[in-house]
């Protein structure tokens, strides 16, 4: 029987009332009296030496308030990187300066050179046209492998070469892995590209910097997934503003997908410039600017080898990956190809020996950082593709090969440093077979063939590490921040509740799901509870939302704070009911004395806390407000099995996704409807990556796909109706809610299923020489593969 409130209920998303009626309050909706507008003049060459910048004519243009260049930021900090990776040889990564406005050189198309602040955006734009730039174009570094060759042009002149780091994991296992591969009965090798993507949230990035001279306080309104992280990075490392003088607000945010985690130059600029000119400064990215200034995602080039013994047991995995960092290190860029990628190379399988090598490379392209899944989709894609290829080479059923190698005992310590606390991969695979109707596939294939189409089935598993992350562990791995979270539960006098949470909701439905948890714990109506998020002046602290961490980490903090509330409320109730505290029970919003009919209501207790006329003032303070910080003991490990069926038109190479099924294990689920929506969105983005999306540069570092004419986003007609199930639940063992997180799963699990299905379709049509097609699997690539 489905519940109609509390944990497990599909409560309707209350935030949708404003999102669907156009009454959301986004950063661009914020206008401050007297604000000026900034237009950034950006580099149109990928690599160049700045000889001179002449702003004299532009400064005299109508409406211009001030024009800033890199020189204005000398003495101001650069944009910091939040993660330091140590390489195979014990050396720390190369960490070049990342100025707010270019200094000396431009290093990618879109690199900001000048910022024109004017009364209106149009005036700022016009003035930018009058700036005379003298830039000598330099040879651009674009291809990662060429970038590492001797004699290559250098993105950063002060570094020896374009290598950021050469990471080996686990380095001590390298010799054993090499040996196992040498002695294997069978080795399957696959070389592939994980295509560069642009996140493309519906709302582009916006920043409004404000300054109040009266109290020397700066406020930044920004499209961020983590306002406290921005306050920390920008205040401490870039502008030198202490926390109590810097407020960061991220109001309604229209999608993030990772690209709004990072601290960007435009945020620092608007905050800095507002102090300089004593006026608010506003910037709203155009879509073209978003393409060349939002951190991109993925962009790995990988070779993976899977070794098997004579009985088809996996014995070793060895990978070599080139990971594109772009021109500068974005906030968390170094962690993505390393700790969020290498640690997942065991997948769902008992592979005893694993070695991952990652070379991170600087190129004259937009910086690359986390995008939905961040490292884990790259790990899943290569592993699940190479397993599929191995099954074909060995002539065994790909599902059976996976099943044979599943991890079945938990907890399971992988050879890549993480310990899966719980899971049941057989259960999700069995559920997948049911919801995807795999037994009916052959009949559907025949029906497709009767229409002249090739039909393929692709299946894969995935595991991810979510609930990011135990602070002591990530500190050892190079994180320069803790990754706990915090919540304050403020119970008001009449019993209504405001919960201030460090997580930030930008589409995830926190405003609905978080109150469900508190309502369940207190036995009161969800409508009595609101969450407050996104404002550093209103919430205690918070590391924000990414890595499917909100409910697992911040939700746990909220549970701990609510437990403190319950403990205190019971003390008040025991006083009101003249009973022993140990005998007080809280059920359905009523405090009662065990074994009696004496009770008082939630509202009686909360009122007593704020009107303490009859109150144990000698024992406890008045008021009812508690804060908790929660630092997770481990990552959480959602897992699942996905199936995709495609039709390929042999005449044109066009691939259509006919069916897509997802069986996930997210542990306990707070709101099944929201979880289903998260999975839908993730699969949509995964299909987008697999079939459509590609961020392309030419050999001169010119960005070629910078509008929706050339960057193909998935549309409703590109995806089928999904069959989604999350009834397989092995609750997380180390957080109080038993939750694992669901935000990224769809984007992690879906690309290999699509490509596996395309290869299966081509094989069914006799194209057995086709072993791999790189994403996006576009009609031209499929057609070329069929005709190769």
């Amino acid at each position, binding site marked *: 029987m489905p519940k109609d409130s509390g944990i497990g209920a599909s409560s309707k998303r209350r935030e949708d009332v404003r999102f669907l009626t156009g009454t959301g309050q986004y950063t661009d909706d914020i206008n401050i009296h007297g604000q000026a507008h900034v237009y950034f003049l950006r580099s*149109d060459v990928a690599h160049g030496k700045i000889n001179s910048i002449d702003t004299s004519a532009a400064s005299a243009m109508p409406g211009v308030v001030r024009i800033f260049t890199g020189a204005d930021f000398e003495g101001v900090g650069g944009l910091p990187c939040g993660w330091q990776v140590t390489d195979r040889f014990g050396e720390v990564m190369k960490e070049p300066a990342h100025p707010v406005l270019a200094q000396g050189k431009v290093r990618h198309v879109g690199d900001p050179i000048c910022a024109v602040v004017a009364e209106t955006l149009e005036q700022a734009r016009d003035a930018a046209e009058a700036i005379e730039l003298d830039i000598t174009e330099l040879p651009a570094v674009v291809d990662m492998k060429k970038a590492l060759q001797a004699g290559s042009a250098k993105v950063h002149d002060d570094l020896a070469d374009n290598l950021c780091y050469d990471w080996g994991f686990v380095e001590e296992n390298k010799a054993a892995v090499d040996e196992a591969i040498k002695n294997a009965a069978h080795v399957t090798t696959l070389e592939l590209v994980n295509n560069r993507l642009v996140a493309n949230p519906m709302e582009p990035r916006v920043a409004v910097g404000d300054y109040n001279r009266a109290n020397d306080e700066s406020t930044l309104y920004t499209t961020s997934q983590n306002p406290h992280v921005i306050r920390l990075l920008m205040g401490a490392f870039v502008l030198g503003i202490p926390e109590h003088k810097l407020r960061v607000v991220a109001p309604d945010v229209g999608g993030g997908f990772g690209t709004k985690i990072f601290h960007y130059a435009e945020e620092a600029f608007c905050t800095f410039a507002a102090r300089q000119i004593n006026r608010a400064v506003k910037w709203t990215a155009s879509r*073209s600017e978003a393409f060349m200034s939002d951190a991109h995602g993925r962009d790995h080039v990988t070779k993976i080898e899977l070794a098997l013994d004579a009985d088809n047991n996996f014995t070793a995995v060895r990978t070599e990956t080139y990971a594109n960092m772009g021109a500068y290190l974005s906030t968390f860029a170094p962690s993505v190809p390393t700790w969020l990628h290498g640690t997942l190379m065991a997948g769902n399988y008992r592979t005893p020996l694993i070695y991952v090598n990652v070379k991170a490379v600087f190129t004259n392209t937009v910086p690359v950082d986390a995008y939905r899944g961040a490292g884990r989709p790259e790990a899943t894609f290569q592993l699940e593709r190479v397993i599929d290829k191995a099954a074909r080479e060995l002539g065994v059923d790909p599902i059976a090969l996976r099943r044979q190698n599943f991890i079945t005992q938990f907890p399971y310590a992988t050879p890549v440093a993480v310990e899966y606390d719980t899971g049941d991969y057989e259960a999700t695979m069995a559920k997948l077979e049911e919801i995807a109707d795999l037994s009916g596939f052959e009949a559907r294939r025949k029906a497709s063939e009767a229409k002249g189409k090739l039909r393929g089935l692709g299946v894969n598993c995935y595991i991810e590490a979510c609930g990011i992350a135990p602070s002591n562990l990530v500190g050892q791995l190079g994180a320069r921040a803790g990754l706990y979270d915090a919540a304050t539960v403020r119970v008001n006098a009449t019993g209504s509740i405001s919960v201030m949470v460090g997580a930030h909701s930008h589409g995830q439905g926190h405003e609905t799901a978080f109150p469900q948890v508190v309502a369940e714990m207190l036995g009161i109506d969800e409508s009595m509870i609101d969450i407050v998020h996104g404002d550093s002046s209103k919430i205690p602290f918070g590391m924000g939302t990414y890595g499917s961490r909100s409910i697992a980490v911040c939700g746990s903090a909220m549970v701990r704070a609510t437990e403190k509330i319950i403990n205190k409320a019971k003390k008040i109730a025991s006083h009101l009911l003249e009973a022993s505290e140990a005998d007080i029970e809280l059920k359905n919003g009523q405090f009662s004395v065990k074994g009696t009919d004496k009770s008082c209501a939630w509202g009686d207790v909360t009122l007593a806390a704020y009107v303490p006329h009859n109150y144990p003032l000698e024992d406890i303070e008045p008021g009812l407000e508690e804060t908790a910080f929660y630092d997770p003991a481990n990552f959480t490990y959602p897992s699942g099995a996905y199936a995709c069926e495609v039709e390929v038109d042999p005449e044109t190479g066009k691939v259509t996704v006919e069916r897509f099924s997802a069986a996930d294990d997210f542990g306990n689920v707070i709101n099944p409807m929201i979880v289903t929506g998260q999975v839908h969105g993730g699969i949509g983005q995964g299909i987008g990556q697999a079939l459509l999306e590609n961020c392309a540069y*030419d050999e001169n570092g*010119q960005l070629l*796909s*910078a509008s929706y*004419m050339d960057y193909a986003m998935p549309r409703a007609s590109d995806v089928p109706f999904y069959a989604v199930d999350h009834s397989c639940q092995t609750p997380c063992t180390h957080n109080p809610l038993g939750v694992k997180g669901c935000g990224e799963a769809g984007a992690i699990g879906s690309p290999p299923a699509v490509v596996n299905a395309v290869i299966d379709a081509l094989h069914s049509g006799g194209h057995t020489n086709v072993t791999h097609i790189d994403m996006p699997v576009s009609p031209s690539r499929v057609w070329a593969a069929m005709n190769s």
Partner: protein
Amino acid sequence: MNLADSKVIAADRETVWQALLSADVLKDCVPGCTEMSGSPADGFEATVVQKVGPVKATFKGAVTLSDIVEGQSLTLSGEGKGGAAGFAKGGAKVTLSDHEDGTLLEYDVEAKVGGKLAQLGSRIIDGFAKKMADQFFENFRGAVEGPSDQTAETAEGDGEKKGWFKKIIG
């Protein structure tokens, strides 16, 4: 992108060569060129108005002649900055040789674009560059040969247009 093509021009090599070195000819031949000044030795300053796909812009830039082998070959290079539209660069290696119908002009064109032009127009840039090059050398042939009878007729409404060569020789 690179493309190569050739044209036969009904004029002797010396005439064709002189035309290649003329600012007036270049101005008439560069599609969309509104201004051109300068000399072969110092290079030319040019203003060109062009629409590439969705982007229309005024490009200001320089055209230079290099690798000059008198009467035989030269390289025409141009670089135009279109402000917010980005930039375009191009070069054409032009080689002349004798031909039974006059002079064979062979050209090897290279074109590059950057900024907004690349971001929004990359799909069409190859076709655009080919069209520009074809037009340029077709205009050039027309300028050297003068209008054919057919084009003269169609151009009548605009007043009779004479080719550069015919203007000089009367």
